[in-house]
């Protein structure tokens, strides 16, 4: 299978056509409508933004080693954390899994040749890139000092920085998000292979569906919030300005109505990836498949009703706070179901500790801790003390970085052979996965303590009694930075010198493994027919997917 003689870069055999060798000109990449190539276009952009945001984080952790603001000036520090936040949230975390793994895998997993709207898919990439470059220009040409949340009236009336340009970039990128969501929803409704019923969908496909719903319904609200911000800052329309009867808290409501669900745009895809990896590497059907599906849909739906927990101390009505607090506890239930079910999937399995599996198990641990600390913030009197401190910083980094990024790396390693046709070194991969887990905890766990002790967020100087914890966190960041850079080396190496991958190196059951590695441009030689539920790993002698006309009566 995979041991073909040495061939050209990435291609399996000289002359064999796959989506990578289907055209080699720059034009063939920039005008491609192949979902797999578009995934790689996104991957290139996202990698760039990830390391840019990471560089900003490194600079901040270096500044915070000492209590005095001796490395950066106050304004430089404020611009650095804004750059870190804006880039990481909108140009890395939100698009990361859906646009790369999602674009690549969704059609393959459901036995389709393409997404529903291939040209819209390409257009989304250009929108995203245009937004990214606009924002990047704003962040580097002088910078923005509002933080990624753009709270009014600071952002509209007081900040002397490129707020409008940065907001315009985020606004444009939002449309990319909406278009991707629409594309995925249509793809899942229209292009599933014969026999691929909803309850036979892989959980990753379900995750993409839930994520897309959130993207399509929430992103327009962010667009409106940014438009209003634009109107006030550029034209002086008094929308949030209290001196003219405006309401600065209104912006927070609009902003968080998008930005809290946005957390689920980051975490639902991660849940999808982890479910695939754990099922395959434990060789078990995911425990409680139906519960896992409903839990993801519940998270997507209830995710829209908890935004108010960002405003417990903003002076909103105490009754509203009580309702938002209660709903925030409720959304923890489906999240807990997922954790228990992943654990249950291991029971009676045949567990293999491959690189993706280590990342996935790391995800479960970090997500659980991140989720549990979410309960602290959902509790009203505790939130009063902890909000806007490092406790919050630690909490959302556990979910969004510990969780989402670990899962992204799990998925990247898991599908790497399919995407590139090459294998990477398992030893080096496992080492990276373990260092990421420890580096992450080392960096962010001290921040929970800092937050409880009262260290506020976004401080470029701080009272000396907090220093020990900051030094710990910064030391951990060094380990973490290494753990993020290291895969770049061995994965890059595998592209050039890696062993050829077989079509199904993990012996997995998903449809994406039934085609060649890397897949041909049109994905499948013959349209596959699905005859059973996914993840039938532990049923002996079961052939998951038969070629057409093999069994099951054909439907008209």
């Amino acid at each position, binding site marked *: 299978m995979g041991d073909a003689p040495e061939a050209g870069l990435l291609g399996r055999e000289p002359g064999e056509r796959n989506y990578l060798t289907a055209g080699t000109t720059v034009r063939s990449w920039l005008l491609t409508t192949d979902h797999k190539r578009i995934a790689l276009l996104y991957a290139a952009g996202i990698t760039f933004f990830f390391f840019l945001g990471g560089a900003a984080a490194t600079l901040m952790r270096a500044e915070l080693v000492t209590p005095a*603001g001796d490395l950066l000036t*106050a*304004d430089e520090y*404020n611009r650095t954390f804004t750059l870190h936040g804006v880039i990481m949230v909108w140009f890395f975390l939100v698009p990361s899994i859906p646009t790369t793994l999602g674009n690549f895998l969704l059609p393959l997993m459901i036995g389709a040749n393409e997404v529903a709207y291939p040209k819209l898919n390409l257009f989304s990439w250009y929108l995203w890139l245009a937004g990214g470059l606009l924002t990047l220009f704003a962040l580097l040409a002088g910078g923005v000092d509002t*933080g990624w*949340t753009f*709270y009014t*009236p*600071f952002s509209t*009336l*007081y900040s002397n920085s490129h707020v409008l340009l940065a907001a315009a970039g985020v606004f444009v990128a939002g449309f990319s998000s909406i278009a991707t969501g629409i594309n995925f929803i249509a793809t899942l409704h229209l292009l599933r292979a014969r026999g691929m019923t909803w309850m036979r969908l892989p959980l990753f496909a379900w995750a993409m569906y839930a994520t897309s719903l959130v993207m399509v319904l929430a992103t327009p609200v962010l667009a409106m919030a940014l438009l209003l911000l634009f109107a006030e800052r550029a034209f002086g329309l008094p929308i949030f300005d*209290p001196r003219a*009867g405006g309401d*600065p*808290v209104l912006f927070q409501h609009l902003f968080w109505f998008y930005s809290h669900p946005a957390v689920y745009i980051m975490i639902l895809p991660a849940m999808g990836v982890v479910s695939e990896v754990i099922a395959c590497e434990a060789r078990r059907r995911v425990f*409680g498949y139906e*519960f896992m599906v409903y839990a993801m849909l519940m998270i997507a739906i209830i995710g829209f009703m908890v935004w108010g927990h960002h405003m417990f*101390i903003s*002076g909103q009505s*105490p009754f509203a706070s*009580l309702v938002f*607090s209660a709903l925030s*506890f*409720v959304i923890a239930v489906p999240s*807990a*179901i997922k*954790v*228990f*079910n992943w*654990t*249950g999937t*291991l*029971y*009676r*399995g*045949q*567990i293999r*500790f491959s690189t993706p599996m280590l990342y996935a*198990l790391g995800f*479960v*641990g970090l997500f*659980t*801790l991140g989720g549990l600390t979410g*309960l*602290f913030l959902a*509790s*009203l*009197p*505790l939130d*009063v*003390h902890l*909000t*806007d*401190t490092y406790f919050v910083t630690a909490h959302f980094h556990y979910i969004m970085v510990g969780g989402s990024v670990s899962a992204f790396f799990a998925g990247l390693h898991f599908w790497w052979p399919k995407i590139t046709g090459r294998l990477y070194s398992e030893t080096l991969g496992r080492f990276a996965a373990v260092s990421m887990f420890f580096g992450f905890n080392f960096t962010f766990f001290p921040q929970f303590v800092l937050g409880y*002790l*009262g260290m*506020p*967020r976004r*401080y*470029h100087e701080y009272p000396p009694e907090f220093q020990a914890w900051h030094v710990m966190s910064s030391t951990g960041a060094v380990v973490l930075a290494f753990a993020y850079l290291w895969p770049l080396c061995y994965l890059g190496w595998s592209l050039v010198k890696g062993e050829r991958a077989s079509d199904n190196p993990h012996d997995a059951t998903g449809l994406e493994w039934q085609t060649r590695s890397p897949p041909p441009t049109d994905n499948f030689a013959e349209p596959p027919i699905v005859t059973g539920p996914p993840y039938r790993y532990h049923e002996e002698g079961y052939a998951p997917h038969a070629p057409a006309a093999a069994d099951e009566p054909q439907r008209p």
Partner: protein
Amino acid sequence: MIQASTLAPRVDGIFWMLTGLSVAIMLLVGLLILIFSFRYRRGSKAKRGPVPEKLSGEIEIGWTVATLFVFVFVFWFAAALDTEQFEIPKDAMEIHVVAKQWMWKLEHPNGAREINALHVPVGVPVKLVMTSQDVIHSFFVPAFRTKQDVLPGRYVQAWFQASKVGTYHLFCTEYCGTDHSRMIGGIIVQSPADYARWSSGQPQGDSLADQGAGLFVAMGCTGCHGGSAVVRAPSLAGLYGRAVPVGDGRFVTADEGYLRDSILLPQKDIVAGYAPVMPSYQGVASEDDVVKLVAYLKSGKVK
């Protein structure tokens, strides 16, 4: 961590309860993962085979209901404290706080002023009436477990009762621009005797209400609201705390917020039966002036 208010130990109670719960759940999940990982590693001799359908259904429902029950309990437990805390004691000493980029300006009832420092007596409830002159700030005293966003154009309230003598950090925790990290101060909690000594040593000036009375005349308010001019504008005597009928049949309670709005945004809620003729004092009365005017209107000295 130091607990310097009556609220602090109770918040910490919830904190440690949740920490205990989290540790228990982390241990449960972590141990299960470790045990399964070891026992069912590939190649081990453990027994495999399917889990009975019925059993797995019961497990699912069991842990869903259990988590829901636990979470609802924690919510109720935490929310109860918050609801209790919402009532501000009537006899609280009232401190006026004006936040601006990048300092805290505080004013005692007797007119004594401080910047980035607040002296309070131990064991006395202190009510903070706060507003911001520019952007959103947040008043945070970690040792008291107290935090409240301070909004421009609005009065917000918070309260605490210090329980330990000492000096504690006052931070701004809502990001507010360049010197956000320098917008810090100290809360100095003193014994009642020390506080009295400190207080009497301050240049008292007039009380807030007295200064407000001066402004009330100086800014021309008496021209319309004075005792003899009730034709054009309502008298303000005894107004504070009353329900006022406004235009469309609604009633608005004349609290600090309403008084403040009436000075700066007079067209917002006009008392029924009066023409909307009052000019806005936006830009005329500073945030400090408004605080004093409101203090005067609340004082019962209005005729």
